[in-house]
């Protein structure tokens, strides 16, 4: 069925309304999980895999924080991506490479744990010309899903 101009405009208007209601317009997305770091990390790994990504590495960032007023050195950076995807991206968008693989920083705050990552829409602003819109949208959706799974 071919749709005429009227509904198409209205439809795209409606779509625009839906798309333009992001939960996070900030450069970063940050959420709080009400559980200790270890439990959060476990759930995060699961959530990342459930969205179809591989965790490539979990880094300890702050080997030396003890003794600086910090009571624990509970800080990790979790890296993840899709096998194969990275190579193609590096070829096409070398500007994105320092921001890849995707990553989420995880750190303890009292009894809860904070998770922070770069909002994929920010990458869009890094690539003024031909943006991989579909990819950025997928990342956005997946990352929001992953973080909401963990903070639930």
């Amino acid at each position: 069925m071919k749709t005429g101009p009227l509904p198409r405009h209205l439809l795209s208007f409606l779509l625009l309304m839906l798309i333009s209601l992001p939960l996070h317009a900030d450069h970063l997305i940050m959420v709080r999980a009400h559980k200790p770091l270890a439990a959060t990390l476990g759930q995060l790994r699961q959530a990342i895999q459930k969205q179809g990504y591989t965790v490539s590495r979990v880094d300890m960032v702050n080997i030396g924080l003890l003794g600086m007023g910090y009571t624990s050195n509970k800080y990790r950076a979790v890296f993840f991506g899709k096998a194969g995807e990275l190579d193609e991206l590096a070829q096409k968008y070398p500007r994105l490479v320092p921001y890849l693989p995707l990553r989420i920083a995880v750190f303890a705050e009292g009894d809860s744990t904070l998770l922070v990552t770069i909002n994929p829409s920010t990458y869009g602003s890094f690539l003024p010309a031909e943006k991989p819109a579909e990819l950025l949208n997928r990342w956005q959706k997946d990352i929001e899903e992953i973080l909401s799974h963990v903070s639930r």
Partner: protein
Amino acid sequence: MQDNRIRLHFSIAIFLLFIIPLCSVSAAPDGARLFAMNCAACHGDRGNGGIGIPLSLPDFLGSVTDEFLFQTIRHGRPGRIMPSFRHLSNEQIDAIVSYIRNLTPVKVNLLPEGATGDPEKGRDVFARKCARCHGPLGKGGAGTGVNFTRLHNLPIVAPGLNNPGFLAAASDRIIRTTLLRGRSKTPMLPAAKMGLTIQDVDDVVSYIRSFEKGFQQSKNSATRSIEPTLLTSSKLPFDATVEKIKRAISAQRLRIIRSHSLDDGLVPQGSENKKRQVIFFGNLHQINTLLAIDPRMGLFLPNRITIMEQSDGKVLVAAVNPLRFGQLFNNANLEYTARELHNTYSTILGEITE
């Protein structure tokens, strides 16, 4: 056929006309949910403070208007971590304001307008009585949050007063009330306890207001867009580039922590693309400094440089541009260390640039 199409158009149009207003009206925004989604990560679930300062203290809520809260959320505090929430509707922000109000129900009670102060005298008062916490130019205290795994008795960071978001939200009356009353349970004492007279208070209020004059200038420099990535093409072949970069890192007296292929851990072992290598480097002092200024900096620590041979044989070298950190994290305190880091990267990349 034509008829059917028109009917279809018509019914879709009617359907949309109904559904669009429903989208925005039917569900009154849920303040608790909006707060949990947008604010709790920094301010705590009940506004008790964390990376962001506490929002539930009676002295705070009794000394600020709904308009102050609304404008603070709308504009954020540029350069002070607190983001601007431009994408939220007025109704959503109102719902968040009501939620904050209900955290600690107290009556808003502003003290009366003061006399016109002398900003020059205020500058002197500020330097003597306020600068040690709020910074010499009123840009705010350094570091974030009370607790990011730190001892809970570390003081609350003093907010930036020389800040367009703060001054757009706060009337002189709110600033005066805050000064005269102080905020108990925080390091912010009432003026009398700091040894200030009423005249001092009015002078310092007019000095704080005078910060607004500097904003136009800094606005121009802030909107300049900064390249997110330092990207350069190497004059050397791949292996020689990797070696040269490693030597340049050591020459900066930075430690190479590890190096592996970019897709390490993502593809089956042995099938990595060896022509895309990441080198991780840094030193403990720098990592700790950056994390203390902003715990979110762990996203970019330790430092890394990626060397990649592209399909056309070109060797590219890429790193994040630290000059972008201030903007990315909305944290002006990162800028000094970021500039140092930028110099380091530039020197290293300079070794191989064609």
